[in-house]
Every structure is written in C-alpha cells, then in structure tokens.
C-alpha cells in the first residue's frame, strides 16, 4: 500500500478520535436542549470552569486569591495541600451540581416561557459570567491537568502496523489520550442511555423532554428535572474538560470548543444523542481530511471554518439536521 494512502487512513483515524471529543461537548448541549428547550451556549465555558475547578482543588489553590489579595493586601495563594484526582473529581462534581442549581434558581426560573432566542442570549451572558468567574477564582494562567491518563503515541500500535507500508511508513500514530477519551465517551453515552431508559428520574426526564405541560400534570417537578439536567450537563462538561484539559492544558481556548460543538449539533440535529455522536465523527473526520487533501492548496488552517461551512451547506438541504425531529410550525 502506498504511504499516502496509509497517511490518509491515519488522518481518518485521528479525525474519528477528535470527533469523539467534539461529540462529548455536543452531548451536553443535547441533554439541556431536549429537556428544557434551552440552547446552552455556556456548555464550553462550563467545561473550562469544571477543568479550572478540578485543577484548583487538586492543587489546593485558595479561590479568589487574586481578588482577596487585591482587596485586603494579603499574600494568600495556596492552602498547601494536594488532593488526589478521584476526590478532586467528586468535589468538582459537587461544585457543578451547586452551579446547576444556582443557574436554575437565579436565571432560568425567571425566564420560563420566554422566547428561545432570549434564553439563548441569556446563556451567552452566563458564558461570559462563568468565564470571568473561573478566571477570578483560579487565575487565568495556563494550567497543567494531570489525572493519570496516559499520553503520547501508542508504540504498540505503531510497531504492529509498520509492516503495512514501505520503508517510509512507521506505523499509525494514535494518541493514547484520544483512545482513552473515546472509551470514556462510549461509557458515558451508554450510562446516559441506561439512566434515561431504566431509572425513575430518567423516565421523568424523557417525559419533560416530550411535553412540559403533560409532565407537570402527572406530578413531575419541572424545577427538579431542570436542575438534574443541568447537573448532568455539568458532569458531561467535567468529563469533556478533563479530556481536553489533559490534552492541551487548561486555558481560555478550552471554552472555544463550544464553538466547535455547534456545527456538530447542527449536523446531527439538536435533539438527538446519536446525532451528536455521528455528527461529531463526521465533523472530526471531515475537517481533518479536508485539511489533509484540500488544505495545502488553499493555504491551510481550514479547520477554523470547514465544520461550519459543512453544517451550513447541509442545513440548506435538511434544516433539522440528520436525526433531528421534523420542525413543524403552526400559525
């Protein structure tokens, strides 16, 4: 087999791995959108916030230390202890649940029955708020997140695939972190499906997603379900934050992955969990392949916009996305 062809396959495999990470973020969007009709722009920032909080807790940072130092003229920065990754993740989850509760009580309780676009803009406001809050609490420098996930290329795969090509082919390079991420994403999706199919709360959640008023009339508490859904989205954000944070460091650009998840959603449909996964894979493979095949001809760095253009062209032909419910409008 020619080396170019094998490189092409490697690009596709890496695209699939990247797609899994996009799908992880997109999942959080779908969960909230299905249950409450809110298009949560803040999902990416939630991932950033979760990752920042996790690092902060593990390192034993004092929250708001810069602010405290500026106001009181003190010099606090660390508590001086280190928390292990598992406890750190649990504590971060507690913070995310508290955040979900606060978001529901402070913001969206007051915006029930508003137009979707108003809710969307409220989540943009929330995104800004959280971004500033995360930086205020934990500082804005780039942080390293190490929760014990193996990193770097897998030598085993490289060695065992090197025979496929000629002398200039050294085997497929696949990051172990990406493989772990793919595995985690798979487990996460299975767990979410099991949760929504086989538990009482999951059934209630699906009922709310189906029809708010009918759910309310059979005694399901909308407030509780919405807090639950925001907590779940916070959990997904935490997982995505850990994966992306381990991959490229915890920094501001992490919140931009939300923007990458948007075309994934448009492609897959806003209301479909399988759609988020398939959309993520298509976008991941598509942008890597486009950059590999067409990118050199038109100057490279096409990954910035290719996903959007793909989604845009796709939407013109199928406005509700691949797996979305048909949009029916009545006057």
């Amino acid at each position, binding site marked *: 087999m020619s080396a170019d062809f094998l490189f092409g396959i490697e690009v596709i495999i890496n695209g699939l791995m990247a797609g899994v990470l996009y799908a992880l973020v997109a999942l959080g969007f779908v969960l909230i959108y299905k249950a409450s009709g809110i298009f949560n722009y803040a999902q990416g920032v939630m991932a950033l916030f979760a990752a920042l909080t996790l690092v902060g807790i593990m390192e034993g940072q004092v929250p708001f230390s810069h602010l405290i130092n*500026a106001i009181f003229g003190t010099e606090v920065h660390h508590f001086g202890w280190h928390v292990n990754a598992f406890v750190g993740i649990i504590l971060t989850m507690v913070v995310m649940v508290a955040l979900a509760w606060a978001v529901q009580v402070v913001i969206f309780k007051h915006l029930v029955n508003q137009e979707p676009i108003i809710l969307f*803009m409220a989540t943009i406001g929330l995104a800004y708020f959280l971004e*500033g809050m995360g930086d205020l609490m934990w500082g804005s420098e780039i942080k390293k997140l190490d929760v014990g996930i193996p990193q770097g290329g897998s030598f085993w795969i490289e060695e065992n695939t090197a025979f496929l090509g000629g002398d200039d082919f050294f085997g497929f390079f696949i990051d172990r972190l990406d493989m772990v991420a793919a595995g985690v994403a798979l487990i996460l999706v299975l767990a979410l499906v099991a949760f929504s199919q086989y538990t009482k709360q999951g059934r209630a959640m699906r009922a709310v997603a189906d029809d708010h008023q009918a759910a309310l009339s059979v005694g399901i508490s909308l407030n509780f379900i919405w807090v639950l859904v925001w907590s779940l989205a916070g959990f997904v954000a935490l997982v995505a934050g850990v994966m992306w944070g381990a991959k490229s460091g915890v920094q501001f650009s992490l919140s931009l992955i939300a923007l990458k998840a948007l075309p994934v959603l448009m492609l897959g449909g806003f209301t479909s969990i399988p759609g988020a996964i398939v959309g993520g894979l298509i976008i991941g493979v598509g942008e890597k392949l486009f950059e590999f095949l067409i990118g050199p001809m038109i100057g490279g760095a096409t990954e910035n916009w290719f996903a*959007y253009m793909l*989604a845009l062209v796709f939407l013109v032909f199928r*406005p509700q996305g691949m797996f979305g419910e048909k949009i029916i409008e009545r006057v």
Partner: protein
Amino acid sequence: MFYREAGDFKVSYKDDSQTFPIAFDRFRYYAVIAVAFLIIPFVINDYWANAVFVPFLIYAIAAIGLNILTGYCGQVSLGTGGFMACGAYACYKLMTAFPDVNIMIHVLISGGITAAVVTLFGLPSLRIKGFYLAVATLAAQFFLIWLFNKVSWFYNYSASGQINAPDRFVAGVQVTGPETEAWAKYLICLVFVVGCAWLARNLTRGSVGRKWMAIRDMDIAAEIIGVNPLTTKLSAFAISGFFVGISGALFFAVYLGSAEAGDSFGITKSFLVLFMIIIGGLGSIFGSFAGAAFMVLLPVLLKNVLVGGLGWDTALAAHLEFVIVGGLIVFFLIVEPHGLARLWLLTKEKLRLWPFPH
C-alpha cells in the same frame, strides 16, 4: 411638567407622524445635535476622542446595523465581527487602489460591498431559523477572518499581514493616518452616525420596517398576510450589512489606523455588538446608542476605578469586567428584555405626568 402636550396641536398628517411628536422631545434632539456638532469638536482632546467618543460613534453604527437585523427582523447574527472586517478590508483596498477619490465615498462603497457579502451569507436564512441561523452566521465569521488572513491580495501582499490606513483628506482636513487631529476623527464619525441613524429611523418606521417586524414576530403568519419573506429577510441582511460595513471601514480607517483581521474583528467583536443591542434594547434606534455608550463606557469606568483608583491588577479588572458584563446581560434579559431604551421610555412616561401622577 417637562412633557407638556397641551398647546402642541397637530394640524396635518405630516405633523402627526413625525419622528418626535412632542415638542420638548424635538427641541432636546436639536439641542443634542447642536452640542455634538458645535461644542464637542472644540473641547475634545485625544484621550476623550480615542477612549470614548470615536469608539462610541463607530459602535453605534454597528449596533444600529445589527439591531435592524436582530432587533427588527429577528434574525440573530453572530457574524458582526467578520462583516466589520469585510467593510474594513473593502475600504483598505479602495483607499489604496483609488487614492484620489474622497474617503467618504470609499466608506459608503465599502458599506455597499459588505451589504452584498452579508446578503450572500443571509441566503440560508430562507431555509433555517432561530439558532440554526445564528450558528450559520458563525460560519461567515470564521470564514471571512480566515479569508482575510490567508489571501494576501486583501492586504496588498504586505509582509506583516496587517492593513494600514494611508493619509486621506476631506476638504483639506486630514481624517485618517497617525497625524489626524482628534476633532477631525470625531467629526467624520459623527457625520456618518447622524446619516445612518436618520436613515435607519426612517426605514424602520416605514413599510420596510413594518415588514421586518412582521417577519420577526412570526414569519409564517407574515407570509400569509402577504409579506414576501425572500425580499424582506434579504433586505434586512443587506441594509444591516451596509451599516456594519460602514462601521467596519471607519473602525479601521479612522479609529485603529492599522488592523489585522483576527485581532481586530474576532468573534469577541460579534458578541460585543450583540451585547450592545441586548443591553440597549432590541428593536430600538435609541437603544443602539444607549447600548454602545454603555459597553464603551463600562470598561473605561472599571479601568479608572479599579486600576487607577484602587491600584488593582489590570488582568483582575478585566476578569471582573467579564463577570459584570455577563451578569448584566442576564439581569437585563430577566428584568427588562427591552433594555435601556425601555427604561428611558418609562422615565419619559413618568415625566409626562410628574409631578401630578393622577
């Protein structure tokens, strides 16, 4: 007390449908215009021009443009930064290709070019709606910025990839380039702002504006009563693009002087202008001004108080600004979805009755 309508008789339809039907309102408006044209240019200095007045005026144009699209026609756009870049690069190419033509004409033509580009990106709006469309406009944002960064024809093959505004004169007075006087920058922006606001106000209260609002309130219903969605939506995109293009051209040529697509017209600019119209008031020309003033003044104020007054770190002040802006967006959406413009209207209603509320 202030808003006396007694004695203010309307004797023709023209009187009845004028923009400011109350005499006091009208005179106050003339007074503001007079102060803006006759007093401020003589007292303005470099700091006030660069930190407050010029950005305020330019953002006001952009906010009017976005307000036409989002506030009046209901099509949310997150591509404002990219469209402003389009105006800026169009203006740059025109300024360098035709150095003898007056810059005011260049700015207007850049508006026209941007209008064409925005209309192109508005085409999907006929098929997709709501946030699908909002996300689709992100495609425009990222694609345009990438285009201006990668295709060197747009920046005349300069090594730095930047565009720099050459010196240009209007009636013998320098308006672009590093040696421009503060008052000249201010005045050229003011002229465009007054022109744009006048145009926008009259468009939005005419039949075009009513069609936009019908589409915004419910597009299917509007279609049934005979509003053509194709021409209405695309005209909103085109006119919005015209204003945004003008503001982009001025932002580059008059305010920045040199620009680089990714830095000056990134996604944050799109959100900034969107926040201006949310805080100022969706569907209101006055709201565009109020929002632009608010978003320009807030960082200046925070910087002066926190960094200058309390001696805090600039980064800390910037983070706090994020928190405050985000909080305010949510606050306004909850308490007053129509923004500052609505508050202003309520104040006026109160003042009409004051001091005898019954």
